[in-house]
């Protein structure tokens, strides 16, 4: 799960304070593991250093820091590149697939196209594993089976999600 890229995605939606970013991150992606404030500001600091975001002037108010962050052109490019690339089809990456779909829907991007590209990448990996299963030793076949069942589970999720994109989009858009 990539915190910097997810924060960039949330900033692509609209310029935000660190507090807003944390709140939305926790609501959509935290899943019971809230992002510590320290990590939010450290991440924003690194993104600013690398020219992916710029911080506005400190605003008066209560609380630790009141700066509004704005994504830069370089930040948008990095985020867009990440968003459109399929994740390497390995087990345990479900959370990244999930994050990409939710962000794409939130930003009005083509989540269906992303899911199609991901499905093709998954199928390609399944073909490789099927070939390994056919031609390899028993131990290889056993490992290939393990991978195949996990990828199949991902694909079922991809299909189900693709079938419900409209309803999901309504649920995540402000």
């Amino acid at each position, binding site marked *: 799960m990539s915190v910097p890229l997810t924060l960039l995605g949330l900033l692509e939606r609209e310029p935000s304070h660190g507090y807003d970013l944390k709140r939305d991150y926790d609501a959509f992606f935290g899943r019971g593991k809230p992002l510590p404030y320290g990590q939010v500001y450290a991440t924003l600091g690194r993104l600013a250093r690398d020219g992916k975001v710029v911080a506005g002037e400190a605003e008066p108010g209560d609380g630790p820091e009141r700066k509004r962050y704005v994504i830069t052109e370089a930040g948008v490019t990095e985020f867009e590149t990440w968003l459109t690339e399929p994740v390497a089809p390995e087990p345990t990456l479900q959370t990244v697939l999930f994050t990409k779909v939710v962000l794409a829907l939130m930003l009005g991007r083509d989540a269906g196209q992303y899911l*199609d590209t991901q499905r*093709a*990448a*998954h199928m*390609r990996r399944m*073909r490789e594993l*099927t070939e390994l299963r*056919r031609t390899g030793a028993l131990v290889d076949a056993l490992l290939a089976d393990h991978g195949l069942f996990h*990828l199949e589970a991902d*694909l079922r999720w991809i299909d189900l999600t693709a079938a419900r994109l409209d309803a999901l989009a309504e649920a995540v858009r402000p």
Partner: protein
Amino acid sequence: MTHLIEARDIHLAFGETPALRGASLAADAGEVLAVMGPSGSGKSTLLHCLAGILTPDAGEVRFDGERIDTLGEAQRSALRRDRFGFVFQFGQLVPELTAEENVALPLLLNGTRRTAALAEARPWFARLGLDGLERRRSGELSGGQAQRVALARGLVARPRVLFADEPTGALDSLTGEQVMELMVGAAREQGTTVVLVTHEPRVAAYADRESVVRDGRATSLSAEGVAP
């Protein structure tokens, strides 16, 4: 390049209900193509159009460069008999015939003499692990055995294209994979193109590539250039 079998922008409605809405799909000689998609997406209807079982309302279906959607029923029937093989979800063996007669059926329908047809059918039993079952009737075969008999029947006449509609749908996963292994192996050996309709990714992974049918339209996606 001319594809061996191709559907171009085909439309088909059953009454008021559209089943295909501009589907295009092509398979080359010797290729194994999986057609995937959710239930009701139109994938079986697309296969039936490609195989000349149904004719589309609009669009073209070509086999070996020639249009087949404009042929009459008798010509399409001859084409299905002489050039195409079929395997369906439930073997659909003829219950009154023995397993070897079922395998020989396409040859008998092509006008091959009975002894020659049976002689050609018999080697398939060893090839597909069906030794000793030649004289059984379909009621005396397990699901996996019956499906292998159906597979032999689909391939015995050396068709140019084998159409397989959910061929493992009624089998458990291990038996299903044995059937897929045999189907793809035998088809590749004799250079038969396979158009395989399935909703199961593990079955589709035996194909060279896949096309996804959604809402009556087919898309072929390539994962080339994608991180492995």
